[in-house]
């Protein structure tokens, strides 16, 4: 408990608190208690505010889902066409430009880029809000203005996080495309005189996208876990910050709750990816 250096807290209160939280029991007993509660989805109450951990997570989940869902969507919308385009023009100047562009995004520290963009679009131009999910006067706005208020607050975080995620998906798409276009059925499609455009987008892309499904499955924990750096920089009220704040405050029940949920989601994500993969690719059987 983080109360050691507060001159107003006496050692008696520390001993008292230990007893209250069951920390004076032997460790095996504490563990058995914890597993027992876990089976009933009872993650306990937070040390920090005495609220049920589940309620704390439920508070934060929507914000994280909104931000990471939108940025994942943006990544796919932008990265897949970029990857296909790179593959169509592979080894050309355009291909190299896209490669450099996406890798610059991948390599730039997100917090630094975020601060620069905040300074530029927020302070200097004054076009966009700097941080947060909605304005201070959000509750007084009409429904349409509320929607635009959310949009304005989403622009910077969504695009900056998408910029960092472009590289991997576009590279996956590009290399899968290059592999697929060497196959016989593509040569057949070309030979029968289909336009280049529809050969790539209709015939090749479908097969090239199969491995991407795995990535969607693996993105599930990240989708819900959120990103601590992003949420801190943008003052976004999400899960990543909750995890970090609980760690900094030694709020063990919350940390354990988030960790257990993260572990479960990773497993569920893997299963979903496997099932989807089998569903879309008849060559694979479970």
């Amino acid at each position, binding site marked *: 408990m*983080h*109360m*050691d*250096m*507060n*001159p*107003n*807290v*006496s*050692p*008696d*209160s*520390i001993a*008292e*608190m230990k007893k*209250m939280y069951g920390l004076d029991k032997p460790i095996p007993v504490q563990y058995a208690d914890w597993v027992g509660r876990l089976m009933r989805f009872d993650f306990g109450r937070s040390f*920090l*505010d*005495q*609220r049920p951990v589940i309620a*704390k997570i439920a*508070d*934060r989940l929507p*914000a994280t889902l909104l931000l990471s869902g939108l940025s994942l969507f943006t990544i796919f919308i932008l990265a897949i066409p970029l990857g296909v385009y790179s593959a169509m023009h592979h080894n050309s*100047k355009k291909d*190299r*430009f896209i490669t*450099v*562009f996406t890798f*610059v995004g991948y390599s730039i520290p997100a917090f630094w880029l975020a*601060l*620069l963009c*905040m*300074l*530029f679009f*927020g*302070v*200097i*131009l*004054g076009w966009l*809000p*700097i*941080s*947060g*999910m*909605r304005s*201070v*006067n959000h*509750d007084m706005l009409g429904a349409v203005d509320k929607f635009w208020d959310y949009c304005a607050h989403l622009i910077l975080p969504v695009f900056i996080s998408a910029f960092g995620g472009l590289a991997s998906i576009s590279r996956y798409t590009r290399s899968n495309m290059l592999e697929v276009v060497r196959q016989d059925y593509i040569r057949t499609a070309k030979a029968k005189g289909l336009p280049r455009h529809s050969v790539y987008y209709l015939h090749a892309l479908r097969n090239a996208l199969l491995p991407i499904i795995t990535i969607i499955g693996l993105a599930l924990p990240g989708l819900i876990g959120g990103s601590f750096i992003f949420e*801190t*920089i*943008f*003052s976004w*009220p*999400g899960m990543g*910050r*909750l995890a970090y*704040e609980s760690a900094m*405050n*030694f709020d063990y029940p919350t940390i354990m709750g988030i960790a257990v949920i993260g572990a479960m989601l990773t497993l569920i994500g893997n299963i979903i990816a496997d099932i989807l993969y089998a569903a879309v690719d008849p060559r694979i059987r479970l």
Partner: protein
Amino acid sequence: MSVFQSTAVILVGLMILISGCAQKAMKDKIPDQNRDYPAAYGDVIVQGTIADPAILNPVLASDTASTDVTGLIFNSLLRYDKDLNLEGEVAESWKISADGKIITFTLKKGVKWHDGRLLTAHDVDFTLRTFLDPKVKTAYRSNYADVVKTKVVDDNTFKVWYRKPFAPVLEKMGGMPILPKHLLKGRDINKTDDFNFRPVGSGPYKFVSWKRAESVLLQANPEYFEGRPYLNRVVYRVIPDMSVQFLELQNGGLDMMGLTPHQYNGEANTQEFNYKFNKFKYTSNQYTYLGFNLKKKMFQNKHFREAIDIAINKEALVQSVLEGLGAVATGPYTPRSWAYNPEVKARAFDQLRAREMFVAAGYRYAKNGKLLKDGKPVEFTLLTNQGNRNREQTAIIIQSQLKEVGIKVNIRIIAWSTFLSEFVNKRKFDAVLLGWSLARDPDLYSIWHSSKTGEHEFNFVSYKNTEVDRLLVRGRQTFNRNKRQQIYYRVHEIIAYELPYVFLYVPDSLPAVHARIQNIHPAAAGIAYNFIKWYVPEGYHKYAK
């Protein structure tokens, strides 16, 4: 043009664009700072907080984010005025019995809870009992541990008996936030989520809403017994990153924040910033020190400690670490406290004399300039906690200054919890670099009394001086402020003379407040003491009603 060249051109273009736009038009409407405007109701003040409040029940909250908010929602019996004298808040007056064991508080009449009920002595009694209830998860129970019994004499009179006379009780009893009995009676306060997250108090602001990890909104209490606050709403925005807070301040997303010395002298010193904001500067009630483990033989020699003290250039620390925005500390009190003894001066920096003192204390210098004791070079490890850049810089400067007098200092920076549990609590350290944030009452028993050297206690340097022990006990039993002041002047003097710590510096508080907000007058108590009287003149309101 290659891809790299074109990317570089784009980046450079962006930079030029950024710097070219750096002088943005001044669009905020700012009242003339040299004119007096009549006070007006309305407008909103937006403040930043690094962390989301944990719980808005002052009995259960122990984080500053929560207590900042509850401070505006709840009242206490007494408070400090702008000159740091205790004055009545809910209490009209208070009387201490001749033996110092009984305090009688008379409450103001007509103080109302936000739901309209009257605040009475029954509420005060209920709150005190709540703090003392062992089932309540509060960190402040020991503040009230010496209470023997309480009595509600009538609706406006409350009496409390103490085991022994104890002067800081006035701060502790007086500062106790009062809870409404009619809403909490007979309930398990740890789990009254409806109250803990939607508090009902009696203070100048009413709770309106709380968006988790985003913001807390408060609304002025029109029936507040000291008059309706001028600023209509207070918003606390949770912005965990300090650089983002500063951007928000510049962008108008925040109206107030504490600046770092670097910001104060640099980014917050532009023409535009000085036009849009009023900056304040006053000494804080905290200090940074180098504490010696007096259980170690090396540090038991007072001359050795004194030589180290004069070998460290504290003025240089203030100039470099605090960029000049602070003062050299002289002892266990800061100039913010009435217990600060102005007669005590810091020793002058003099490395030549430090060398002489080492030699006089039985040390000797080797040919390579190293200080030797019994043939062995003198070295010690200086521990400090991770995450405090000022302390890390200070440690490095001390290291280089002591190197000049031949002492090798090894710096170790350790995460806070390990630092406490493995080193400080187990006394496994040579010297630590730490700071204290002091309460306003000058009782320093828990830091300097020789009985407070137990494992989790705060006299971890193991300081022992019978006169200081006696004075600290007497200071707790003396209610007369002038007599107490004399006692603590002497404590300040002795500790400064004995040097269990090298007292380093007292940083300044550097708040900036948007210039549309008027009637802010820094005093000994800072700027927030008259918060309910701050106002924005008519015509300069930023937020509509």
